[in-house]
């Protein structure tokens, strides 16, 4: 996997580089601001970029803005936002154009190296990796829109994990149930959300988008 890192804190930038290289990925460039990120992505065409949200010069959301510009210009490149904070408006902007190839994690999550690397690989492969915090915020925000009210607590749990970008087998491991049980829950979710049988992947994305409140 070819990765570009944009992070202004040297300690984290070098740590991330080392972490990814240790796992056999290639870090094409490690830059410190949004403009450099766009240049590096144009030059190296990576599979995925890890982007800090707060970077110079204004230290507010230039990472997010660079990531949005990058998604427009290179839709095939995954973006994993990486921040000390989860902001609802950031999640909403990031997910506006669909949840494929998008991730948004708290910096804390890097502590679990294996999970972090798995999340990054998912995003690089066009999947989704959302921090549980993002999911719970968006869930609260979408709570009033109904539709989801009919889901059982267990189904809601499954849907939340789907929104984080997990596969059925990963969900089964997480919830300590059989794969068949997860499939049953997923089918029930599709029915309750009124998603007709189709190619299952498509329905999965639609369910998650519905859950996240995106107009899909």
């Amino acid at each position: 996997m070819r990765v570009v890192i944009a992070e202004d804190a040297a300690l984290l930038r070098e740590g991330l580089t080392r972490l990814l290289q240790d796992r056999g990925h290639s870090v094409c460039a490690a830059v410190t601001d949004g403009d450099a990120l766009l240049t590096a992505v144009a030059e190296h065409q990576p599979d995925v970029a890890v982007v800090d949200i707060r970077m110079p010069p204004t230290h507010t959301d230039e990472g997010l803005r660079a990531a949005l510009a990058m998604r427009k210009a290179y839709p095939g490149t995954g973006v994993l936002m990486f921040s000390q904070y989860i902001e609802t408006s950031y999640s909403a902007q990031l997910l506006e154009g669909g949840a494929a190839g998008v991730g948004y994690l708290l910096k804390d999550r890097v502590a679990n190296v294996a999970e972090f690397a798995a999340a990054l690989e998912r995003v690089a492969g066009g999947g989704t990796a959302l921090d549980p915090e993002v999911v719970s915020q968006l869930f609260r925000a979408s709570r009033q829109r109904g539709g989801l009210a009919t889901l059982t607590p267990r189904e809601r749990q499954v849907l939340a994990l789907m929104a984080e970008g997990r596969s059925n087998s990963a969900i089964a491991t997480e919830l300590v149930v059989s794969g068949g049980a997860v499939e049953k829950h997923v089918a029930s979710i599709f029915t309750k959300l009124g998603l007709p049988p189709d190619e299952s992947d498509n329905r999965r994305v639609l369910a998650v988008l519905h859950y996240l409140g995106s107009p899909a």
Partner: protein
Amino acid sequence: MADDFRRVAGIIVRAPLTRRTVRELLYCGFGGIAGVAGFWITIVMLAFGLTISVSVLGTVIGLLLLTLALRLSRRLGALHRRLASWLLRYRVDAPPKFVPGTGILGRLDKRLRDRAAWRAVSYSLVKLPVAAVQLYTAATACIGLVDITYPVDWLIFRHHPGGPVRPMVAVNPVPFGGNFMIYSWPGTFLVAVVGAACLLAATWLARAINAGDRRLVRALLGPSSMAERVSELERTRTLAVEDSAAALRRVERDLHDGAQMRLAALAMNLGMAREKLDDDDDATVRELIDAAQRNAMNALADLRDLARGIHPPALDNGLPSALATLAASSAIPASVTADIGTRPAPAIETIAYFCAAELIANATKHSYANQITINIHTERSGVLRLEVTDDGIGGADAAHGSGLTGLTQRVSTVDGRMTVSSPPGGPTTVTVELPLKA
């Protein structure tokens, strides 16, 4: 002693030749004319206004005339201040601007109670004797200037050798004794000496009377001392409020770039170390690393909450963004509508944000509500209005809830207002109004 005397005498005699004297004399002229004119205009309008307004029929016209006189006095005051600043280099701040009332009666009432205007009126009235002396001083200076040129006039314009002797009339600056006639060239030197004396006298007279006028201008046309103090206090308070907002933002940034970043790096390094351990390595080491990592993560979570309490980072992108995150983390479903025109000052945004946070927390704790709505918008009058409504049980009391009382205090640091409407049975609406600038 003799040296001192000579020095003082030198100053006195040379004074008429300085620029300052020219300015002071010009001030006597212009200021005197403006003073006399202002006096008559003011007194006529006041007299008419007062007499007419006493009669039943003329009340309206009389009051109109009075308010017109008051407005004009403010203008005259401004003219006098400008003259003093231009010619005397004596600057006096303008009194606070007039704040019009609302409605016809409100406007009238405010006008008639405009203290600064009444003080300007009193200046116009007191100025008359001062203006008289100033005009006399200016006239004396003019006479002095004319008189001092007599010997030259005599030779150039009046008498050529062999011509007839035409006597010259010399103007007497003193208001008694009458003017006198000059019949010979040497006599004109006497007039020139009188002219020089006039200039000298006018110089020092101008300084004396203008010194008095300065005091009047300061006392009657400047801001009253209390108003001055209040505006000074408002200015320093704004600075203090903005300073503390900036300081808090700096603290948050330092935390973000310092402790939080280091802890995240620490957690990452511990994670990498944990990865390197094989399953057959010492279990205690693994447990210790796990514990260290948990501690680092907890510290990170604590710091994140702390930093949010100091300065929520989303505020950098404006209130709507910050409030959206706030609403999304509320335990009771909360929706936000926002319409922000001009962006408020950072200190105001911070106050509005923390008000919203506190009100949501209050509603969560006490209201048993199912839904909270947050509305924030700017109004054309320069007010930021925050409304937090819940459909709970009501009965909130601003006087007896420590949370609401604290908010009232916080809001009042920038002259904001908070009103609570919470009938028993609900719904509760708390409205916070803040100026756009601290």
